[in-house]
């Protein structure tokens, strides 16, 4: 009983601190254009709730185009991450080759390399390959995350060895073993890195910011911060746009919590 009395108010306070900025965005986005954006507590809530700011965000600022760009980038990034991390993780776990231990160590070591350190050089490489200012060029440098590779490696290591050996006896080739026996056993981890890949791509900021020079190609988060700076910004419309950008990851988070937690925890542990 005493525990409740102490924990409850504190938990409400913590949840409130997280929620307050987000709820404030919602009330702001629902305010009609005549309403003041300031004034606590009197005018905190919209007097005439309206969705016109969302309509404005989609029609008058290029939010729809940004969302399209982001969906392409996140979708493409999710697929490359799934395919490449699964293939590499499988090789690191179950296919012996010369230099495998070295390659594993090198990959782990690159975890301490912040992307910002190679930002300038990556930009030069990207310009050299004429990938600048293209959506493909945004995805490729971060097409496969090392975290995902190691999530898959762990998953394949956990599969008992007999499973593959039995198939080997039956004369199945390495690709058949991989496709028909190994892949179906790691479905859970595939879901984890799919979710992780999507969230990562949606969040990437500095690379799209420097590699894209045409604002028409911006993904949502680069676009929204760009607009909040240049658009003779109507705070209500920007708030509506911010909500649109935050909804997809929140939706993924609340629907796929198990996968998100597993992926982020394993990722954080690796650094």
């Amino acid at each position, binding site marked *: 009983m005493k525990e409740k009395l102490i924990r409850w108010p504190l938990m409400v306070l913590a949840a409130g601190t997280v929620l307050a900025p987000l709820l404030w965005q919602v009330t702001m986005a629902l305010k009609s254009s005549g309403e003041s954006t300031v004034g606590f507590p009197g005018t905190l809530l919209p007097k005439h709730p309206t969705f016109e700011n969302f309509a404005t965000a989609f029609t008058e600022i290029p939010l729809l185009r940004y969302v399209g760009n982001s969906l392409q980038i996140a979708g493409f990034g999710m697929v490359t991450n799934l395919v490449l991390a699964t293939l590499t993780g499988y090789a690191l776990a179950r296919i012996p080759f010369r230099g495998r231990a070295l390659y594993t160590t090198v990959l782990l070591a690159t975890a301490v390399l912040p992307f910002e350190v190679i930002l300038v050089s990556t*930009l030069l490489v990207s310009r050299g390959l004429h990938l600048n200012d293209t959506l493909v060029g945004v995805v490729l440098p971060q097409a496969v995350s090392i975290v995902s590779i190691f999530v898959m490696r762990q998953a394949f290591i956990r599969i008992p060895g007999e499973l593959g050996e039995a198939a080997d006896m039956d004369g199945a080739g390495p690709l058949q073993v991989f496709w028909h026996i190994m892949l179906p056993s790691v479905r859970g981890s595939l879901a984890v890195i799919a979710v992780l890949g999507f969230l990562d791509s949606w969040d990437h900021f500095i690379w799209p910011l420097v590699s894209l020079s045409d604002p028409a190609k911006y993904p949502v988060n680069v676009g929204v911060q760009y607009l909040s700076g240049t658009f003779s910004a109507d705070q209500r419309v920007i708030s509506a746009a911010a909500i649109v950008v935050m909804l997809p990851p929140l939706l993924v988070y609340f629907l796929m919590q198990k996968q998100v937690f597993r992926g982020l925890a394993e990722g954080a542990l690796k650094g």
Partner: protein
Amino acid sequence: MTAVATSGVRVRTSHKAKPQRKHRWYVPLFFIGPALILQITFLFVPLANTFVLAFTNASTIGGGRFTGLANFSELLADTAFWNAVGRTFLYMLIAVPVLTIMSTCLAVLVNTRLRGSGVVRSLLFSPMVLPLAVIAVVFQYLLNSDGLVNQVLQGLHIVSAPVPFLNDPTLALLSLTMVTVWKGCALYTLITVAALQNVSPELDEAGQLDGAGWLRRTISVTLPQIRGTTIMITILASIATLRVFTEPFVITGGGPGDSTETIVVYLFQKGIAPGTDAGYASAISLVLFAFVLSVSGISWLISRTARP
């Protein structure tokens, strides 16, 4: 994860005792090739290139001659750079302790079976999936002179004039660290809660029998058992704050003046636009890398000596 990974290697090597099926040479290549090509192009070549460029006067549109240590001696005398370094370390000194202590407290707070605690946990962890750039835009409005925080402070008559959270050179950096804390607490609390759930209840029960109170048991029995996790959070937060870019770039643009210009913001200004000095920017990148490696190294040493 590192520990898990190495134990994984051991599991495999023990398997090697059995006769293992030999694959043809192209089988491993098929599996690692695609990712390897991308990593060579966008990871290993840029990394090597950074080391080469740092010793040249190359511009971001090409060219460049070998200039030896010229970039580094220029960097050594560049007060704007060292101011940015100082600010970044100040940022780290403010944000990291707050992040570590708050995440630990929050984790202890929500690590309970009380009704509704599941919902609170979900809410508390949710900022980790929100794009930082958009969070930054939201907080820019929030901390403005007519933003929500000032509205509340003035509405409750706590202050008479708006607090210049973002316009005062000293206050601005502090305000930015609070954004980092708001967003970062989510992930670090999640990691700490996961660690707390792995703590065995036996020691706690023993403490209970000895008559130790809840606070006493938490501080002297539970928290020491997750010390490894706490140290790891400190390391992760330190490295994250050394790289801080999005908060100052979006919220203050490095200002007012240059009061929130961090290392990466400075790097961004020096080496991104076409025609700027790629050689000099590469030298900055290498110094940043050295800082990150030193912080990782020092933390690693501390975590080794701290281990019981």
